[in-house]
C-alpha cells in the first residue's frame, strides 16, 4: 500500500496547528484548535484507507474499490466533532455571559490551598479549630469567596 504523502503532511500540519491553539486559555481558540486537530486526524483516516483513485463501493470490481470502513469511521468522527463544536460554542457563550470573557479560570479551592502554602499555614484539614480565631486566620480566603 502506498498512501498519499500530501494527505499525511496536511494531517500533520493541521494537528500541529490545532495543538498550538489548544494551549490557549480562551475557549474560542480552543474550539478552533479542536476542529483543526480533529480534521487533521480525519485526514489520517483517509491515509489509512489506502491509495487514492480507487472507485467507490458500487459498480466496480471487488479488488478495485477503496476501503469503505475508514470512511464509515470518519463519518462517525465528523458527526461527533460537530456535536463537540456545538457544545464548546454554547459553553464559551455561557462563560462569556457569566464572566464577560471566555477564558478558563483557575480552580478556586486550588487557589485557597496555594495561598495557605504561601502564607506558611498548615493545611486546612489539620487546623485545630477554636471558635474565636476562626474567621480570618483559618479561612485562608474562604470568606472572600463566600462574599463574592
Amino acid at each position, binding site marked *: 500500500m502506498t498512501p498519499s504523502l500530501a494527505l499525511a503532511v496536511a494531517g500533520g500540519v493541521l494537528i500541529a496547528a490545532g495543538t498550538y491553539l489548544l494551549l490557549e486559555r480562551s475557549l474560542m481558540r480552543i474550539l478552533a484548535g479542536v476542529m483543526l486537530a480533529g480534521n487533521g486526524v480525519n485526514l489520517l483516516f483517509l491515509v489509512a484507507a489506502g491509495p487514492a483513485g480507487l472507485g467507490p463501493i458500487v459498480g466496480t470490481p471487488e479488488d478495485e474499490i477503496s476501503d469503505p470502513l475508514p470512511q464509515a469511521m470518519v463519518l*462517525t468522527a465528523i458527526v461527533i466533532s460537530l456535536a463537540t463544536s456545538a457544545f464548546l460554542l454554547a459553553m464559551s457563550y455561557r462563560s462569556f455571559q457569566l464572566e464577560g470573557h471566555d477564558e478558563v*479560570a483557575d480552580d478556586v*479551592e486550588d487557589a485557597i490551598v496555594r495561598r495557605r502554602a504561601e502564607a506558611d499555614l498548615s493545611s486546612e484539614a489539620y487546623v485545630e479549630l477554636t471558635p474565636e480565631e476562626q474567621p480570618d486566620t483559618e479561612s485562608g480566603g474562604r470568606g472572600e469567596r463566600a462574599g463574592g
Partner: protein
Amino acid sequence: MELSNLVPIPVLLPLLAAGITLALARHPAWQRVVSGTTLGIVAVLALILCLAADAQGPIVLWVGAWPEGLGIVLVADRLSSLLVLVSSIVTAIVVIFPSRRDIADSADGAPVSVFHPTFLVLTAGVANAFLAGDLFNLFVGFEMLLFSSYVLIMLGATKERVRAGSTYVVVSVISSTLFLLALALVYGATGTVSFAQLPERFAALDPGLQLTIQLLLLVVFGIKAAVFPLQAWLPDSYPTAPASVTAVFAGLLTKVGVYAIIRLQTLLFPESPLTELLLVVAILTLVLGILGALAQGEIKRLLSFTLVSHIGYMLLGVALGTEQGIAGAIFYIVHHILVQTALFIVVGLIERVGGSTSLARLGGLASVPLLAALYLVPALNLGGIPPFSGFLGKVALLDAALAVPSPLSIAAVVAGVATSVLTLIAVIRVWQRAFWQDRGEDDDRVHSLRVLPRIWVVAASALVGITVSLTVLAGPLSEFAQRASVDIEGGAYGVAVEEAMP
C-alpha cells in the same frame, strides 16, 4: 431465545428509556419511575448475563450478522458482564437521589428535566464501553458517556460549574482526539479494529510501531482513568457537580478507563506488559493522590483526591501482569465503584444536613447517629480496615505484588500500605472535624435527618449495606475475579469471538 440476544440490552434499554423520559419532561415523578424501573431491569439482566458468562464462557453477539466479521461485535465475558452488573446496581440506586433542589442547587430555571434522559444515555455509554468488542465501538461508548457527562457536570450552568466543566470538557475532547488518532494508526497498520483479530496482527508489526500504538492508547485511557501524571483535571472538575452526579462519575467513569487499560494490556499487548513503567506510574498515583487529599479542606475534593490515589491500586494489579494481579485489580474495581459512590452519596446527605461540605464550617454532626454510621462505615472500608472489602482487596493486591520479586514491586507494596494508612488519616480527619468538633457559637442550625426525603436515607443505607455485604460475598467474588483473570490470560475472548463469527 438465544442468550446472546441479551448482550445488547444494557445498551438499548437505557437509550429507549432516555427517549421516553425526554417525552415525559413535564412529569418529573414519572421520569423517575421510568428510569428507576429501566435501570432495575438492566441490573437483573446483567446478573443473568454474568451468571451465564460464568457458566458457559464469553457470550458473543455479532450485531446484524455481517459476514466475515465486518460488523460490530458485542462481547460479555466474565470481566465485562461483572462490571455491567455492578455499574447497573450503582446507577439504579443513585437515580433515586436527584431532585429539583439537588440538581439545580442555586441555579434558578435550571433545565432539570434533562437530567434523567442524559443520565440514561450515560449508563448506556458505560455499558457499551464495557461490552464493546472492537476499538472503534469502545470509542463510541466513550463518546456517549462523555457527552452525557458534559451535560451532567454543567447542569444549571452556574459560574462555578461552567468553570469546572470547562476544564473537564477540554481535557476529555483532547483525549478523544488522541483516541481517534490512535484508531487511525491502528487501522492503517493492521486493517482491523476488532479486539479478537488485533493481537495476532499487532504481533506481526515492527516493535517500535507496536510500542507507539500501545503507549498512545495507554495515554488515552490513562486520561480517562486519571492516573498520574494525567490526573490533574479530576479534582478540579468533579466536586462542583450535583452530589448524585459526582457519585456516579467518581464510581464509574474512571473505572471505564481502568477497564480499557486491562483490555489493552492483557488482550491487545499480552507480550509487552511494561511492568516497570506501569509500576512507577501506579506508585506515583498512589502517593501523590493521597498527599493531595491530606491538604484539602473540602470533603468532596478530599474524596476526589482519594479517588485518584486508589486508581493506583488497580493499576498496580494490572502492571504486575500476573493472573493474581489482574484478579486483585478486578476485585478492587468492584469494591471501589461501590464504596466511592456510597461515600459521595453520603457526602451529599452531609451537605444537606450540615449546610456545607467545607471542614471549616461543619461540626457536631455526630448528633445524627445514622448519618455518622453511614459515613464511618464506607470511610473505614476505603481506608482498608478489616473485615471490610477494602482490606481484602488491598491484601490481595499486595500479595500479588509480593509474589513478583523485584525492588519495584516491593516499593509498590510499601506505597500501597502507606497510602492505606494515609487514606485512613484523611477520612478520619473528616470524621473528627465534621462529626465531633464543636460548632461555632453563632451556628444554631439543628441537625436532623428530617430535612432529607426518607427514600434518600433508605437508598443511601442500601448502598452502604451493599458495600458491607461485599465482606460476606468476598469469597465467591474473588473466586469469580480469579476465573475472569484466568479467562483473560488464557485467551478465551478471542476464541469465543472467532467461533461465533457468522
